[in-house]
């Protein structure tokens, strides 16, 4: 199962867990599974249209998913999905 890495500001949602393993064949369904386990994640990560929020970066094994196929990116056992606040740098 893929593993989410939860950033500090969202750890209240995950009861303080830094990493959370969930099911799902692609990033979108993994987020749904994460939200079923710890409600609230879907709203924080996705906007009304179901797209990734502007201020959220998601990396699949350290690659920015927006440079790939976004939420339809395939995920598998052992993958690490990092959620990182986007407002940094420069």
């Amino acid at each position, binding site marked *: 199962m893929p593993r989410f890495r939860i950033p500090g*500001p969202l750890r209240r949602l995950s009861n303080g867990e830094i990493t959370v393993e969930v099911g799902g064949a692609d990033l979108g369904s993994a987020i749904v599974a994460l939200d079923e386990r710890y409600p609230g994640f879907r709203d924080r990560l996705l906007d009304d249209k179901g797209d990734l929020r502007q*201020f959220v970066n998601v990396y699949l094994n*350290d690659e920015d998913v927006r440079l790939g196929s976004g939420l339809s990116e395939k995920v598998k056992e052992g993958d690490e999905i*990092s959620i*990182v*606040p986007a*407002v*940094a*740098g*420069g």
Partner: protein
Amino acid sequence: MPKLLGLRCRECGAEYPLQATHVCEMCFGPLDAVYDYASLKKVVTRERIESGPKSIWRYRDLLPVEESTPVVTLGEGFTPLVKADRLGHQLGLRNLYLKNDSMNPTNSFKDRVVSVAISWARSQGFETMACASTGNLANAVAAYSARAGLECFVFIPVDLEPQKVVSIGVFDPNLVAVRGTYDDVNRLCSQLVESTPWAFCNINIRPFYAEGSKTLTFETAEQLGWKLPDEIIIPVASGCQFVRHRQAVRELIDFGLVRGDSVPALTGAQALGCSPVYNAFKSDEPEKVMPVKPNTIARSIAIGNPSDGIYVNRIALETGGVVEAVTEEEIVDAMRLLARTEGIFTETAGGVTIGVLTKLARAGRWRGDETVVAYVTGHGLKTADVLASANGHGRRVEIDPTLKSFREKVNL
């Protein structure tokens, strides 16, 4: 009375106490420093500013450092604003000015933001400064940390220009060269910030750091005789400084420091080899900035995933500015044009700014009498290699030490 009230989310307005955090817990939006404007309005005057030091610290009232806090300074800011008549003549602009910020202590505008960031961090008890950098920020952080006697960790992409690496290394920071792009470096540091007790200038203490950029616009107005120009051309990497320039304009007007209340057009400059903000600006959805993989000689501004990109486009549209981008060739041509006409040697990021200025002027953007200011944000020696590899020696001849050889080779 402290002048800083706290931090506020730019998106949802949630308020936070003054602390080293940069994102809103509710919506992940950026946090900005909030000042007690009502009290400040009673003290801030042109005279008070003019009697201050010839550095960014003359605007201390509008910076996030309390009166009693000792600052870490190397004399940053108050750089020359030069009227560029020869370049202006070529571009059909009679009132063109260049803000030459390559004249800062470490030769880029980053000295402004770092002087503010490190002064704030030291006053909060931080012992180690850090940053994710495309080079200039690391240079400033390393120098100011040395000056303050603080520990320093700077993170840069592994393949940065050798000239930059040397001028960072001399200050003896912990220099971490990351195998990846700037965006990889930034992502790594955004994760590291949670497990280190460090002040990352452009991450956890970004709300304070960013404020230092305002001084570039404060100075421009003061040097124009307390007037705002009609348009400012600003290079855009993350967009962090671009957004603060809009805030600086707002403060100059609200505090009655400048005559009138017309807001300059704020125009952004990018390299086509890394133009995520420009791409969105040209599209139907200017507030949907999609990341790119950078591939440009303008390494200082090669940020593929710019955090403030959407605000840059919003502000450009609001103020009547545009976001424009130039090719690699146009960057080098602009560096040479600026040097040849005005005697200023700027780095590739400055080439982008002057390239965009040139492109817009030639496309007929201005009538000719507007006051246009271009921010030249870094020095040419930082990226000297791009000229060396493109026949950078100009009209060079090699001769024997004889009059005969001179006459043969030099056409007088």
